């Protein structure tokens, strides 16, 4: 059974049909790319998948569970986490605390326990620290755990966003333009990181990207979106050779 099955997804903003009849099926463990010209509706699809927007039509099924129209928290708990096109870290919090916020739902103690510092508070905070550091280590950020997130260089901020998203322990990770603003070296490093995450966390990844070196380098399958509609889908190499896709990107 596929991990994510989206059927005939559509959304209208007033009279504007931003996304129409969009379907996608992603198998567990796949690295899947969603590409298309600017304004094609890629981020809108991410917003529908995470519950920020409520789709007007269609269904979203994650791991056999219908999550269409659920709110962001329910969807996050069901197992979808994301990063943002424009980095949205908690800038005035430490690197460690950014990850710990995302661990929120997996380490439960009451506010009362926190205020009066009962033994459970110390036990769980310690466990959260350990878990967060373990995640940060994957991204080589563990030695920067006590810095403010705003103090990290750009590439590290992108990595921290991925670490934070993974901390919610998702089944599906959505990356919105993870390589935006990176130089070729950083992009190559990011590709290794994404592969590593997929292999070591049993993760399924859907990413939006404009950087074709990253797309052709790691994505196994692609869907191409143009004017809110699916233009074509298939194996990466075949899709990138498709004349319609080339036209959509470069014009006639």
């Amino acid at each position, binding site marked *: 059974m596929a991990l994510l099955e989206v059927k005939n997804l559509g959304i209208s903003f007033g009279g504007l049909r931003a996304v129409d009849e969009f379907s996608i099926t992603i198998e567990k463990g796949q690295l899947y790319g969603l590409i298309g010209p600017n304004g094609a509706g890629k981020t809108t699809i991410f917003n529908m998948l*995470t519950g*920020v927007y409520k789709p007007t039509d269609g269904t979203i099924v994650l791991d056999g569970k219908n999550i269409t129209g659920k709110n*962001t*928290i329910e969807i*996050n*708990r069901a197992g979808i*986490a*994301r990063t*943002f096109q424009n980095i*949205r*870290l*908690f*800038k*005035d*919090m430490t690197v460690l*605390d950014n990850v*710990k*916020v*995302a661990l*929120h*739902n997996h*380490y439960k*103690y009451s*506010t009362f326990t*926190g*205020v009066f510092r009962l033994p459970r*508070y110390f036990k*769980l*905070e310690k466990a*959260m620290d350990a878990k967060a550091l373990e995640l940060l280590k994957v991204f080589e950020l563990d030695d920067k755990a006590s810095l403010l997130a705003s103090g990290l260089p750009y590439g590290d901020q992108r990595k921290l966003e991925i670490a*934070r*998203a993974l*901390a*919610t322990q998702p089944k599906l990770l959505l990356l919105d333009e993870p390589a935006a603003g990176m130089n070729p070296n950083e992009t190559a490093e990011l590709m290794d990181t994404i592969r590593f995450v997929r292999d070591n966390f049993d993760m399924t990844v859907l990413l939006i990207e404009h950087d074709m070196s990253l797309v052709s380098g790691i994505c196994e399958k692609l869907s191409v979106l143009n004017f809110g509609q699916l233009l074509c889908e298939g194996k990466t190499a075949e899709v990138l050779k498709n004349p319609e896709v080339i036209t959509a990107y470069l014009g006639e």
Partner: protein
Amino acid sequence: MGFLNNLINGISLGSIYAVIALGYTLVYGIAKMLNFAHGDVIMVGGYVIFTCMTTWGLNSWLSIVLAVIACTLLGIVIEKVAYKPLRQATSLAVLITAIGVSYFLQNIALLIFGEKPVNFTSVVNVPSIKLFDGQIVISGETSVAIIVSILIVVGLSLFINKTKSGRAMLAVSEDRGAAQLMGVNINRTISLTFAIGSGLAAIAGALLCSAYPTLQNTTGAMPGIKAFVAAVFGGIGSIPGAMIGGILIGVIEILGRAYISPQLADAIVFAVLILVLIIKPTGILGKKISEKV
């Protein structure tokens, strides 16, 4: 010695303002709204203590605990009923609603307790400290106000920076959307913020009414507004800022009353607000928001 006495009184009044300002700053930082009904929750706290102690004859500790519980619940209810439906509305709509809630509380109190001020029995039972052969007298209310406010600031900072709920509050304050997508429950976090702010208001009510023992339905209004000035002065959204702003406003008010003019003391406080807004709009500890170009 007169100056030192005034200074101590100023710090004491300022400590009370600081506790009130913490409520303003907390709610502003996290829910991004100015809860102008905050001052009136202080008055409600005062009346709950008054009823418990004077009408029912309970002891002061139990009365304070009951007032904290009552105000905490009141804060949660106000947020649910009045502010939550306006989560997506403009800030002006929320502001006006807050003023409406403020008048509502004042008039409910008027209806129940009448317009005649009641005599509040101090909850503080601590002897005053006499220094320099009695030239400087620090009343029990004064020392208790100062100590309680310090404990609250330290406790609140620890809570916010070191616990799960506190981290959720910080995350919501920075980026509500991103926090939500990381699984933080926004509604619960905002509700908790109002609960804490209003619980603090009850404590502020106990301190305020003990130091200035007349209680009527408008008792919370003026201190509430001055504490708001204090929060802006210190940098709204900042916890240490609320403490510093509160104490400075208290000292300015008492010194202004003693050395400039008793009638002008309030005007001086608001002149400070205007000066702050002109010179450093973000307040003493407020963050400068620099636009990236």
